[in-house]
């Protein structure tokens, strides 16, 4: 092909321009929609920026290759056809392209080539339209949005960020130390996980977060159980050394050592308190604690022996007693358990509440959810609730309202009060009404309020009946 021929040369330029336009046309919709879609998808699945960037780069490269291959099909002959159509030349340039290669030209061919050359003495100056600036702008914007989405940080309040915030240095240290101190494999595992997790600069994925929360909760349960067993063993030893030796006391001691809480509680109730004169103060307190185990004991799989399920109240009372009467060393172990439990509770509770917040902010903000059994301090984190729509529990409910109370199951010292419409006065979590948090110290007052109210209502009803 004679590239020096001005017509052929310009034809090649036209072909390149046509290829460029065709590539842009075919790539445009794919890139405009594809890149932001991939970026958003990456953001949604919380992929690493490097992975997202790699994915988008691969996508762009693939699209480029496909478009490049497509544009290869635009030949000089096709370009000549476009120019023929543009100038209404009846295949003049197309046949010129074919016959300009022939050496043995007839007179007719010579005439034809001459006539076309006369039409375009300096080559064909026609070029396809440049890509629309609007198109290029949209493409650039799309790319920028894609890149922005890759490097976008989760907005505050998202679970990933909260998870990272919760993993403070203090918490990590507490968990790590506790893990070492308690020789618990799970805590160590958690400490390692958290250590690795804290080193990563990116937010954790949703699945990682779920896994860590589950891990945290399992360890919480384990620590609770260990603390109760530890306290039971200590108190059992204490009772076995009691001056008032009796078969019942021995049985209680054994039950405590074996963490048979129900049995110990039943045995303690069988003891007449008037006969407890020989008991020391600590022993009496232990018996009182066992006798007052009025919380509902969940049915366990092995109710006759082993570490059957126990009430949280009893566990706390026993731990408290053990802390009171134990040596410094025992107290340190118990303190470290308490310490790690608090840290775990903070993580688990805040994570779960933040997760809920992401799923349904309104539900979370107005939630009447009973704090998790493994999160004794959870109610303290309901500060946003305290602000909005707080109701003074000591003021009588307004017309059409009743007062419902949520009592903390864990003696966290908190209870919540909130006004609800009469038909919704229940403990259902879905009641989206404002609530107020009342300190535990005022719990008695709340009870009193209810009692007074119920008595008042009864009087009113009785009065009307009269």
């Amino acid at each position, binding site marked *: 092909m004679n590239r020096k021929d001005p017509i052929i040369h310009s034809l090649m330029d036209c072909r390149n321009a046509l290829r460029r336009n065709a590539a842009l046309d075919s790539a445009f919709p794919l890139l405009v929609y594809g890149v932001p879609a991939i970026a958003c998808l990456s953001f949604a699945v919380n992929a690493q920026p490097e992975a997202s960037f790699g994915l988008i780069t691969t996508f762009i490269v693939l699209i480029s290759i496909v478009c490049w291959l497509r544009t290869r099909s635009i030949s000089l002959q096709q370009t000549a056809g476009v120019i023929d159509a543009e100038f209404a030349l*009846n*295949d003049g340039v197309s046949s010129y392209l074919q016959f300009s290669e022939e050496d043995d030209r007839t*007179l007719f061919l010579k005439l034809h080539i001459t006539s076309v050359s006369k039409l375009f003495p300096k080559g064909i100056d026609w070029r396809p339209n440049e890509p629309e600036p609007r198109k290029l702008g949209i493409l650039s914007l799309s790319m920028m949005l894609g890149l922005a989405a890759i490097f976008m940080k989760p907005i505050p309040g998202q679970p990933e960020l909260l998870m990272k915030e919760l993993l403070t240095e203090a918490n990590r240290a507490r968990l790590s130390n506790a893990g070492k101190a308690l020789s618990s494999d799970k805590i160590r595992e958690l400490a390692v996980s958290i250590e690795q997790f804290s080193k990563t600069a990116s937010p954790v994925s949703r699945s990682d977060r779920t896994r860590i929360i589950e891990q945290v909760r399992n360890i919480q349960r384990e620590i609770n159980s260990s603390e109760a067993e530890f306290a039971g063993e200590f108190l059992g030893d204490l009772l076995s050394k009691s001056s008032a030796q009796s078969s019942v006391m021995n049985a209680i001691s054994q039950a405590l050592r074996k963490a048979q809480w129900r049995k110990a509680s039943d045995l303690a109730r069988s003891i007449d308190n008037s006969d407890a004169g020989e008991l020391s103060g600590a022993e009496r307190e232990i018996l009182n604690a066992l006798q007052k185990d009025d919380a509902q004991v969940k049915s366990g799989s092995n109710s006759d022996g082993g570490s059957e399920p126990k009430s949280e109240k009893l566990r706390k009372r026993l731990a408290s007693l053990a802390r009171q009467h134990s040596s410094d060393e025992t107290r340190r172990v118990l303190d470290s358990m308490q310490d790690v439990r608090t840290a775990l509770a903070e993580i688990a509770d805040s994570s779960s509440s933040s997760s809920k917040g992401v799923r349904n902010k309104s539900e979370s903000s107005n939630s009447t959810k009973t704090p998790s059994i493994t999160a004794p301090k959870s109610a303290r984190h309901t500060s946003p609730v305290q602000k909005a729509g707080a109701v003074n529990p000591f003021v009588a409910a307004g017309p059409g309202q009743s007062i419902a109370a949520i009592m903390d199951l864990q003696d966290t010292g908190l209870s919540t009060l909130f006004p609800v419409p009469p038909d919704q006065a229940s403990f259902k979590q879905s009641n989206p009404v404002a609530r107020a948090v009342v300190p535990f110290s005022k719990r008695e007052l709340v009870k009193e309020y209810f009692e007074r109210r119920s008595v008042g209502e009864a009087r009113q009803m009785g009065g009307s009946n009269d």
Partner: protein
Amino acid sequence: MTEADLEAEIGEFRTAFEKLLQEIQRSIVGLGELTQQVLVALLCGGHVLLEGVPGVGKTMLVRTLSHCLGLETKRVQFTPDLMPADILGAHVLVEEGGPHVEFSRGPVFTQVLLADEINRCTPKTQAALLEAMQERSVTIAGATHGLDELFFCIATQNPIEMEGTYPLPEAQLDRFFFKILVPSPDKEKLKEIARKTTGNANAVPQTILTSLELKRFQSLIREVPVPDLAEDYAASLIIASSPQSAESETVKEYVRYGASPRGMQSLILASKAIALLDGRFCCSTQDVARAALPALRHRLILNFQAEAEDVVTDDVINELVKDSEKRL
């Protein structure tokens, strides 16, 4: 010959054609495109089948054309009792100079033959023209007699009256270069026809071309180069017209037989003439498309379903042309 000579010759050809067209149009009213197509067929050395209702100027056109070309013209009125010998000629006993058998030439031995109402004669007589049209020769009693090099047959047929007619067989139809439909004139043209033909002063056409010039121009047309693009386009049209190889649903549904290779020859040759008349030195796909209707409409044989649904070959060809343009 140099490029300038060739260019001059082409110019001469175009001028002669324009003059011819103008001269014919002095006598014939409103058949400009039709006349052009007849002239293209003549310049390509092909025969023409004119189809139109009676009285639209078919015979008049042929007579005017033969006058303008200065060619010898004979007319045969085809009737059911017409025999092949009536067209071709026969051996007759001649008494003069001693009794002997002599070949008496029929009207086919001419330059322009007007076969009027060709579909009125029997197939036997129609078939008499087969050799004459294709080979430009006639074989009688074992002896072959050559026809004039410029032998040009213009046949006419009436599409309305079908009683007592014998539709031309496919082999006969295929030998016509073009089939041209003669339209009925509109109101203005009718008035003009009346003005021109009902007075005493009838226009006498002048001779524009000699037979020599006609031969030269016929040869010139055949030299026009055909680029691959136009060839591909013409070939794809021919292939697409056959229901066996067609992609078009219309062709598959309505066409019984597609165009033959003669159709391809007609397309290319006609497109060459059209290109030259247009002042170009190379034919194009557009020229092929322009030649498609007259060159193919008698070569596509439609089936019964097409007839039942009033589908005509022109519809099928127009669709084929559009489809082939898209594929380019």
